[in-house]
């Protein structure tokens, strides 16, 4: 596969509070996710440039979209974020590549703007210590 866009997004499922994956990609207008690694500075006193080694892996995601109170859609999935403490599988498939992570969602913020939009930007972070791995 050659250089590709994010058009025609294949899969984005998020577990609801009972652990059922909900395919709600149409609810999201945009998203950001990252797989950063911590680093440790191990520069020796004999060096004139920084030496580093990699430490723990991490994953974070923010899912953005308009409020959707329909059954099994985004409000049904995220409205339980403040009242439950469960790991949720987030599965991303784009351009034939898959990334699935156990995720803790930490907020369900809703904003009603002056223009009338009623939107959310739900942040999630890696939950279970498993290295995020694309397949």
């Amino acid at each position, binding site marked *: 596969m050659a250089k590709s866009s994010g058009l025609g997004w294949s899969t984005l499922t998020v577990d609801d509070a009972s652990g059922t994956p909900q395919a709600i990609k149409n609810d999201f207008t945009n998203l950001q996710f990252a797989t950063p690694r911590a680093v440790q500075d191990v520069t020796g006193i004999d060096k004139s440039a920084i030496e580093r080694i990699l430490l723990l892996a991490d994953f974070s995601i923010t899912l953005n979209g308009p409020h959707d109170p329909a059954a099994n859609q985004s409000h049904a999935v995220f409205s339980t974020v403040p009242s439950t403490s469960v790991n949720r599988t987030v599965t991303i498939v784009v351009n034939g590549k898959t990334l699935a992570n156990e995720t803790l969602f930490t907020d369900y913020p809703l904003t009603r703007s002056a223009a009338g939009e009623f939107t959310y930007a739900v942040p999630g972070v*890696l939950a279970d210590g498993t290295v995020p791995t694309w397949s």
Partner: protein
Amino acid sequence: MALMCVYEHGDNVLTYDTDDVESYEVHTQGDVLDVTRPEDAGIRRELGQAHLQLTVHFKPGKRALWIEKRELNHG
């Protein structure tokens, strides 16, 4: 106009007029605890306490007002 009471302290109440509001933000955020184990190669987390936060953005020149409770009752 609808007078909203958001906080009560002693004989006073913090109020605002909904006509003065430009937008609202509601957060239902949870604390996150890092519980990564020595054997983990990625971060392990658990959720802690949950918090509710309402932010009211006022129109230019508008603000919330403290009034006495008895004023509210007479109003």
